[in-house]
């Protein structure tokens, strides 16, 4: 039998199976905490940091990522405070200016409230979320791809930069890659990058009841857990 713990997210008390992350718990209860690098059923690394929440403990709040935080009895979580909203927007702004050519990134930036950007666009083709790497090493135990390099030079590569024998062409890495979903209006050429803003109308609804999953189309881009539950 499953053991349950009770936690509070944004004032709502929810029962969740022991061992689940706060993010999974919240998504399962229809509370929308934006996320990007998380892969369902595989260990999370807390790389994109969009899923940050305030964890209130002994009267002090600590900012941490909900995907790596395991739910413990009595935890108090705030996912939509002014502080979190602002920080999340700033992170999403960094992401979308780095890689505007992805519907997933554009959508999640919109979801996080990015209406304009203050940096120049860069048009990278990888945001190093590591979903591909983890699906390859985590789910199937293969190590056909991995991270190499540090900081600015970090990138995803196969060992020795040649296609690995370990790869059995399952294609899961490509399924999970947020960069493979092009923006609705088609790819943007260098110099043409902008916020596409296609989902803005849907998001106005989200602003009225912040934090609650409105079953938006955003999941399409990066396979939101909710989306997987509901089916396409």
């Amino acid at each position, binding site marked *: 039998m499953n053991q349950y713990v009770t936690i509070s997210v944004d004032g709502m008390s929810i029962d969740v199976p022991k061992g689940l992350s706060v993010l999974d718990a919240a998504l399962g209860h229809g509370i929308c905490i934006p996320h990007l690098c998380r892969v369902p059923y595989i260990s999370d690394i807390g*790389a994109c940091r969009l899923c940050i929440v305030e964890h209130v403990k002994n009267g002090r709040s600590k900012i941490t*990522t909900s995907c790596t*935080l395991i739910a413990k009895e009595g935890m108090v979580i705030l996912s939509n405070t002014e502080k979190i909203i602002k920080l999340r927007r700033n992170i999403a702004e960094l992401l979308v200016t780095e890689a505007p050519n992805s519907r997933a990134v554009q959508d999640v930036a919109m979801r996080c409230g990015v209406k304009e950007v203050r940096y120049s666009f860069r048009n990278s083709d990888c945001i190093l979320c590591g979903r591909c790497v983890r699906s390859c090493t985590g789910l199937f135990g293969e190590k056909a791809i991995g991270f190499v390099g*540090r*900081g600015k030079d*970090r990138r995803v590569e196969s060992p020795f930069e040649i296609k690995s024998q370990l790869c059995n062409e399952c294609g899961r890495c490509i399924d999970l890659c947020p960069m493979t979903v092009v923006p609705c209006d088609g790819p943007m050429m260098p110099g043409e990058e902008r916020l596409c803003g296609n989902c803005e109308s849907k998001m106005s609804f989200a602003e009225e009841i912040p934090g609650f999953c409105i079953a938006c189309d955003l999941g399409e881009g990066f396979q939101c857990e909710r989306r997987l539950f509901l089916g396409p």
Partner: protein
Amino acid sequence: MAKIHAISDLEELREKIVDDRKQFEKTIILCGGTGCKASRAQAVIDAIENELAEQGMEKRVLMRTTGCHGFCEQGSLMVIEPGNIFYCHVLPEDIHEIITKTIREGEVVERLLYTDPVSGKVIQTEAEIPFYKAQDRYLLAQNRQIDPCSIEDYIAIGGYSSIGKTLSDISQKSVIREIENSGLRGRGGGGFPTGRKWAECREAPGDEKYVICNADEGDPGAYMDRCLLEGNPHLVLEGMMIGAWAIGAQQGYVYVRNEYPLAVKHIRVAVQQARELGLLGNNILGSSFSFDVSIARGGGAFVCGESTALMASLEGKVGEPRPKDVHTVLEGLWNKPTTLNNVETWANVPSIIQNGASWFGFKGVKGSKGTKILALTGHVKNTGLVEVEMGTPIKTVVFDIGGGAANGKPIKAVQTGGPSGGCLPADKFYLPVDFDSLAEAGSMVGSGGMVVMDESTCMVDVAKYFLKFLQDESCGKCVPCRLGIDRMLEIVTKISEGRGVSEEISLLEELGATVTQTALCGLGKTAANPVLSTLTYFRDEYEKHINEKKCPAGVCHELITYMIDSEKCTYCGLCKKACPHDAITGEKKDIHAIVLDQCRKCGICRSECKFDAIQVN
């Protein structure tokens, strides 16, 4: 040497060593630290050995090669006891004179004495040198008493008596209480209370636990951990033994960066010697305590000094931090409870046990006890490793120990805490060097780096330098750190090139705050400090770069022009010859001028000119 099985054996050995040493009338202490090795200390050592043999004095004079004395810029350093005579810049050719005059006749060789650059006085003894006098050298002072490769030397000065005392009559709980009461806080940067860490680790469930010594020391310019490990490795080992006993660990690791070959060698030798004596291994000193230490070498990535990255690296994985929602005292190395402490933290432990918590707490101020080793560099007269009581004002370090401005230009700031620390302006020099005061002012003690900067330093350029360092050293795993630092660097570079706009100052502040609050590990969480602290205290410099397109310190290339002051110029032609870009016109004895289009602003002409005629605008 025979194995030691009981504390009484250890005491006997100590007496015997001390007795044996009585035959020596004089001791020549020579610094063999990495700094002095660079100043030919090895040749000096050989010369002394030859000379002593030639004059037939090996039996009467003890030569001791020790770890670093801290005053590296004066190397090679030599101290002769008794008499405390201090010689600096010693070369192999000086040895004959030193042995004949000082050792045989007791005369001082004047020309090798130290001249204080502040007062111009020649000083004979080490104790009188202002650089040393204003310090409170507790840990560093031990360096000159021992040869790091000799366990006998360490035992002779009371070494390993603290672990003896611990094993014979202090309970594990009392050891932890003692450390807690002493107020010792981690010296690795975070300043976490050591006793509390140990208590949490001791209480963590599980039989298998580990202690680790963090000797990764990746801060540019910092070398206090290297100095301790090179100069007094047994002290660090003894500290680890006490910690291991208290928390219940049987295995320890020293994670030392590979760029420190001498430190690696000395700690290896120390572990080997301790094993041979039975001070590491099973049933240490006849007790039930068994403990051993392994040495691991780190590749030298700055981020590998971070606790979780270091443990990943020890496990043979990529040295990347992981989220710390569960602390390493509960799930650390191989997911077992682990206590990680810095070299200097461990080195403080034996004397706390020996002398008691209140002895340690006597030094320092509220919240920061004991002493701290600082690496003093930059535009001061004396640079090197200095150890001061916690709470010593910055100005004491800069002016009394450092001797004040080196180049005659006023000192304007000090950067403390390494790449993730901050810059404090001269009007904050009254601040005491302690964890809380510096953190409150927007900087930190960190690992103890202290870079003094005078008017010739541009603070925008300083911020740029540290951001560049952190950009290179960030592991790149999380977004705020990888992209946030990158964007901050982009903005600061723009400002330094005169392309900045004033809104970018507030953008920098907002971005800095975001990175600080949301990055995964300590590197990212502190990466904005150099920018935020310079914005707090030197905002006018940023504004001048943006609004007036001027770099007040004359550093930022894009914003300066070089010109020749025709009144000062003597038409000597030196600058013309020196310029690698042929940007200077005019014949000898004729008016010189710089062709601005051709000038690459390298500044070579300026350093070449003997008449200060090259001006920067």
